[in-house]
Every structure is written in C-alpha cells, then in structure tokens.
C-alpha cells in the first residue's frame, strides 16, 4: 500500500480529482435540463464538434480549452438559428452535423499533422490536467453555476412550457440561448475529463439516475451533482488502482450508479 500513499501525495491525482469534481458539480443540473428537454443529441453534436475547435485552436495558436469553448459557443448559436428555421427534423439535422463534424475534426488533425494524442481527445486525459486547465475549469464552472442560480426559475418555466413562459413575461429566446451557451462551456471543460465521445454520458447518466430519487427539480439537480461527483471519485480510484483509462472508468461508474438507482422501487 506504499504505492497508494505515494500516489496520494502526488499533485496530478488531486488536480484530476478537483477537475473531475468541478465538472461533475455543474453537469448535474445542466444534465437535468438536457434530460428534461431531450437535448442529449444536441450535447453530442456540440461535443463531437469540439475536435474541430481544437484543430482551429492549433492553427490560430489558441489554448485548446478556450478554442473549444469559443467554437462550441458559435456552433450553439448556429444551432439555435437552424432550429428556428428548420426544414429537416432537428434529430436528423443534429445527427448529420454531429458525425460529419467529428469526421471532419479527425481528418483535419491528420491533414494538418497536428501532434496530438487523438485517443486522449476522444476519451479524456484527466490525469494530465494542468494548473492552467484547472483555472479555466474553475472560471467556466463558476460562470455556469452562477447563471444556473440566477436563471433557475425561468429555466424551469421555459422547460415546462415555452409559450406559457413567454406569455408570462419570460424572455424565452434569451433563456434558450443561455442554456445553449452553458452547455457549450461545459463541453469545453468536460472534454479534458471524459473526452469528446463520452461527454453526453457524463451529462445524461447522473441526471437520469437522480430522477428516481427526487420529488422536486432542485432535488434532482442536487442528486445528479452528487452522483456525478461520486462517479468521478470511483472512476478515478479504479483508474489509479487498476490503471484503467480515467474517462471511461468514470462513465462506467456513473452507469453502475444508474443501475443501482433503478433498483429503488
């Protein structure tokens, strides 16, 4: 067990834990909205496009997290616009965008000969979180948390019935935009934790697990945060003990917790 005590004194583990928890705390409530509003596919589209953001960042010499944040925000705006004047169903549109953006990202990485570990982008690289990453994550998750806190009632009203909310004076389009931008920000910081392919899992699974335990929207959001944090701790532990990849281990832990929650009558 000296190995473990040595590990516990290593900075990278605490950085990894802090990064994972920061993301899990805000992805709980945001994931609830993704579940309530059936936005899983939407999250996927934003996440899969993150690779494009990275290649753009590489070309323009921008820090990857910032580049992904910016490109996701632009894509979110574009999607809001497309959603309003859609001819195709939104599912189809998102399906086309999600996968073609991912393919484009991978092709760009190889064409531009970007020296990067594709696996770590796709599946996360939690154990390599830097101080700079951590600061960005702190800023982004604080922003998301503050926005959620301020807009909470309006977000709920908007989610239950958009037109009713609009008649009652909620600025529906602004709320929609805020939700999209929060999601884009989350994706930028969650990429480091679980990777592009698994972000939606971190968003949806804890929220879906929390549904069984909650009687109010706030309870569901809180439980989702807690379950997400627990999944991060368990996944990280597994990763350290058995040398499994951290991102997928966290998602597996979340899925395990989901199954446990389903046992509750």
């Amino acid at each position, binding site marked *: 067990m000296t190995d473990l005590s040595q590990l516990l004194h290593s900075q990278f583990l605490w950085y990894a834990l802090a990064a994972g928890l920061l993301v899990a705390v805000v992805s709980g409530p945001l994931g609830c909205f993704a579940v309530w509003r059936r936005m899983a596919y939407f999250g996927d589209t934003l996440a899969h496009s993150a690779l494009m953001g990275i290649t753009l960042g590489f070309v323009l010499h921008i820090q990857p997290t910032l580049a992904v944040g910016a490109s996701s925000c632009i894509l979110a705006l574009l999607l809001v616009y497309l959603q309003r004047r859609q001819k195709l169903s939104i599912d189809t549109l998102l399906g086309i965008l999600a996968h073609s953006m991912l393919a484009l990202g991978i092709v760009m990485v190889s064409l531009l000969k970007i020296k990067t570990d594709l696996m770590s982008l796709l599946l996360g690289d939690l154990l390599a979180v830097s101080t700079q990453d951590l600061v960005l994550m702190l800023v982004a998750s604080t922003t998301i948390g503050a926005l959620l806190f301020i807009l909470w009632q309006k977000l709920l009203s908007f989610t239950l019935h958009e037109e009713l909310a609009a*008649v009652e004076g909620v600025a529906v389009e602004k709320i929609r935009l805020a939700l999209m931008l929060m999601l884009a920000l989350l994706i930028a910081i969650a990429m480091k934790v679980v990777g592009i392919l698994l972000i939606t899992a971190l968003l949806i699974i804890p929220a879906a697990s929390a549904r069984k335990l909650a009687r109010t929207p706030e309870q569901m959001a809180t439980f989702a945060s807690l379950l997400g944090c627990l999944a991060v701790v368990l996944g990280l532990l597994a990763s350290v003990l058995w040398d499994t990849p951290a991102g997928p281990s966290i998602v597996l832990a979340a899925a395990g917790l989901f199954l446990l929650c389903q046992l509750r009558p």
Partner: protein
Amino acid sequence: MHPFILNRKPLEKTLNQTKPLVSAQHLGLEIAGRQVLHDISFALQPEEIVTVIGPNGAGKTTLLRLLLGLIRPTSGRVERHTGLRLGYVPQRLQIDATMPISTERFLQLGSTAVDTHSVLARVGASKLASMQLAELSGGEMQRVLLARAISRKPQLLVLDEPTQGVDISGQSEVYQLIAALRDELACSVLLVSHDLHLVMAATDRVLCINQHLCCQGHPSQVSRDPAYLALFGDKVVPYSHQHNHEHNLRGEPLAKKQIAGDSLQNHTNDPSKKSVNK
C-alpha cells in the same frame, strides 16, 4: 371578398367607449406560401367573453398565438393594451415525466406570491396541491393550468380549448367557472372552442373563423348565421338523434347512400366535424 362576412363594422361602438384590451386589424398569416389566416379584424373589450369557434384546422389556435404575441403576423397588426396582464391556459401541457415537480411548485413558477391553496380551491382542485404534475389526468391538468392563469390576477384570460380531456358532464361546469371568474377578476376572456353549443350560455360574443372571419355576434345570432351553418351544419345545436337508416342483423348499417365510413348518418352537411353531441 368573402360572401360570408357579416358584421364587418366592429361591434364595440355599441358596447363600450373604452379602449379595447386587444385588437386585430386585417390580421393575416402566411406560412410557407400557405395562407393560414387572412384579414381578421376584431377588438376585445374589457370584461367581455369572446369565444373563437371554427372547424379543425381553421386557425383558431394560430389566431390566439398571434393575439398573444407568440408569433408575428405577415400582414395587418395586433395591438395590445400597454401593461396588459395576461393569464394563459394552453391547449395542453405535456409534462415530461422526467421532471419531478409538484402542482404547488408549478403554480409558484407562474407567480411567486401566489396563495396556492386558495387558487386551487377556486378551481376545485384543492386535493392536487401536493401531487406530482406528471400524475395528473387531462381534466385535472386543465384545472391546474387555469389555477396558474388566475393566480396572476390577469386582466385578460386566454384559454385554448379549456375542456380538452374533460368529460362531457364536466365541460359545462368548466365554462360556468370561467364565466364566474370573469366576474370575480373583472377580466376579459378570450377562448377557443370547437363547440358553440357548450359555450353559448357563457359567452358574450362568438367569432366564427375558418381561415377568415366568417361571422361574429351573439351566440344565438351566430348559430342561425348562414356562414356558421355552412361550416357546422344546422344539426349541431342541439343534436337530436334521428335514425335514418337500418342495420342488418350483424349490426352493419344498410346504406341507402354510399357515404364513407362513420359519417353515414345525419350530419351529411358537416364537412369537417365528425363528433356529435350526446
């Protein structure tokens, strides 16, 4: 342009001199080249109950959405009284079972200072306060939506088919409740219904629309209007059953005239409405 338009002069001159709460001037809406509504003009006066009726697809809900400012007209315009407080009862609220929320909490989302108990009691839904919204039946949900609308003390109450999911015996009760609420809140009411018969007693004015304004006026007047009769037929109010065909031993109707499906019976001049009142 349309032969059926009667009462093109606004009625408000004879009713009231005060400013209308909502008015529409030559309202038109075109979606993807299709004219959904055109040239609709009317004004809603304070404390007036106006019912919009029309066959399915006539644009009733669309008209409400235009008047509420949820969509913009492609021609004409809507004027709403400045600072008008609205209460809105949408056609249905499809609450996703993934969101856990109680009726009480749902009401508080509409207005924070609401006394949920008295509002729910007023619509006869006291027992629903602590229930989860997703567990409510269609009729219960309608009452809760009405409670949320009146909790805002609206000056204008807008209801889109308020009796959806309410059984026949409860429907006239709902309209009586709406009329009573108009008196208590001293508000105007604008509602959509597909059934003139039910709303007759509780409405001051009826707008009969089918893409355009076919006719308007007092319900008894409208029910005799040729434009109304052309849309709904004259057998709708009130329906008395006259058996005009025979059945064979297996229960199949013996058709005199070959008319498609279930509209085999009396309401042959009823092009769009199949449902018949008991």
